[in-house]
């Protein structure tokens, strides 16, 4: 038999860490550059499989918006063996990349011309940052923008320097909250849903993007329902063990769906009745 003509879907391409900065005590932002010189070609909401050969591979959200350059950013929390090893990387170290995979936030479709509500709870800021930056750089294509951000403590605010910049953009309202304040915190205290009462938006003309820990979704969705928001205008991103990323390995299956191919971004009305989704 001859050489296989098909692409090896499990073989990563290589990339180099070109910048690393600490975001919070547990998260770092990495800028990687594909060694091929090509752009990753993703859209907001997608993920890529990041690997360190010999250690492992995991699906990680892309935090930067698409920009045509061979670089992309990822905010990564240190939680396991692979992310632990990633946190020990230095600039110049190599990683493996497969992707981008999965569905995207509807930045070029359902969101166009609408007011946008971003609900970023904790680490949910990481995938949403890609969409926020995309929307801000195409500001005229969207209406009013609300960005709600909630973290455990002020020390865990992700991309805090950028948050302030976003809040200054015309037509953008930024509201932050923390679960536990420190001495210097002057803002809102409480879970992210406490911010909903502080904003007013037209539920008929707004698209909401919500990403955060599993427990948050139920409460945030309930609040949105109370505000007469249709679930057809709500998009969520679900975290699953997307081991292969290409709809083969079965790990990210949610009933009839594969999070890696049918998600990770779902229109909530499509999965509201799906057991185990949220």
């Amino acid at each position, binding site marked *: 038999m001859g050489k296989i003509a*098909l692409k*090896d879907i499990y073989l990563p391409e290589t990339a180099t860490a070109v910048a690393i900065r600490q975001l919070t005590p547990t998260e770092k932002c990495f800028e990687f550059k594909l060694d091929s010189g090509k752009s990753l070609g993703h859209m907001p909401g997608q993920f890529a499989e990041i690997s360190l050969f010999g250690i492992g*591979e995991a699906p990680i959200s892309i935090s930067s918006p698409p920009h045509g350059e061979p670089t992309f950013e990822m905010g990564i929390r240190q939680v396991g063996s692979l992310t632990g090893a990633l946190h020990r990387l230095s600039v110049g170290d190599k990683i*493996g990349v497969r992707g981008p995979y999965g569905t995207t936030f509807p930045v070029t479709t359902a969101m166009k011309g609408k007011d946008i509500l971003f609900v970023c709870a904790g680490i949910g800021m990481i995938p949403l940052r890609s969409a926020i930056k995309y929307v801000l750089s195409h500001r005229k294509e969207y209406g009013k923008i609300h960005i709600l951000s909630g973290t455990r403590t002020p020390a865990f605010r992700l991309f805090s320097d950028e948050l302030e910049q976003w809040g200054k953009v015309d037509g953008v309202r930024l509201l932050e909250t923390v679960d536990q304040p420190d001495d210097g915190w002057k803002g809102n205290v409480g879970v992210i849903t406490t911010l909903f009462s502080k904003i007013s938006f037209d539920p008929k003309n707004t698209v909401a993007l919500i990403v955060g820990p599993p427990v948050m979704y139920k409460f945030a969705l309930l609040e949105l329902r109370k505000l007469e928001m249709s679930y057809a205008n709500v998009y969520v991103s679900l975290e*699953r063990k997307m*081991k292969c990323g290409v709809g083969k390995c079965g790990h990210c299956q949610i009933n009839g769906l594969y999070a890696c191919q049918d998600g990770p971004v779902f229109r909530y009305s499509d999965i509201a009745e799906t057991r*185990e989704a949220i």
Partner: protein
Amino acid sequence: MFFIAEEKLHILLTRLTDDYQVCVPRKKNGKLHQTRFPDGGGDYTLDEVRSCEPAKIFFFRAREKVADGFGAGPPPPPPKPACITGVKACDLKSLEVQDYVFLTDEYTDPFYKRARDSNLIISADCTQALDTCFCMALGVNPFPEKDFDINLSKMEDGYVVETGSAKGERVVKDNEHLFSPADPSQVKTREETRKRVQSQVRININEYRIPQEGDWKGWKPIKFAYAFWNQDAKNCVECGACNTVCPTCHCFLLFDQGAGKKTSRMRVWDSCLIKDFARVAGGANPRPELWMRLRNRFEKKFDFFPKVLGINACTGCGRCIAACPAKIDIRSVLGRLAANAH
């Protein structure tokens, strides 16, 4: 249709070893196992029943290297493609599920495709039924009707041969001196044997009151899900044997082994019943309880695949019944599902 005598089939299989890694079922402790040919000579058993190993082992291997080092390219193909023999209809049916998973979308699995494209399948009629066989409840007859290159039906001194593909026809043509036209009486014997095995499977189905595929109206919501599933989950030990022997189970894990330049990425079969199967690094687990994972296994077979592919991902081979140390019986699960759907 043709006829090939026992000793001539041996010659044919020996010939095929030039181009293929030929595998034959052989008996060990009364059970059939896939083994290499010609090692061990002619003591193979192509008829009787399915082998212990499901056919997926030839295409979606239990453990396979899928990437070699950093950027070194995909691992080379095995020296010879597989010629698998004595495959039964239940296993042929299972390949529809495996093909769907590995071949039919933009991300084609190159290893599976390579093995599938280059293989030669010499299937065979069942001449017996195990008491765990219930293929006909899932719409599969105990004799191959499609998806084979060559099919063998056991006679007293040889086999009635039917070709099912151009590849199979070529094998017969290239070795035509080994074949003779089948005698009408042999074809008649084939039909009689088929009817006899069908009636044996039907006895199993009646005895265990297994619902017929057409009779049950698919998966319906289960009112008391915990009670429904825990009667089996309370016995399950999460060993994953059912997944391993299942011809349609396709889930796998990717992991890296070795260090530095000698690393390779491996793909190994995984089991959806194991607690960490869907757990993410942060600790969240969409199916934290065993009964949920057990439900998911059956739901995937009888709800997910009917939805996405239009067929049940169970072929009635009965391997999981034999393999389960907790005696969880897919036949009784099917019975309960059918009762729930009514």
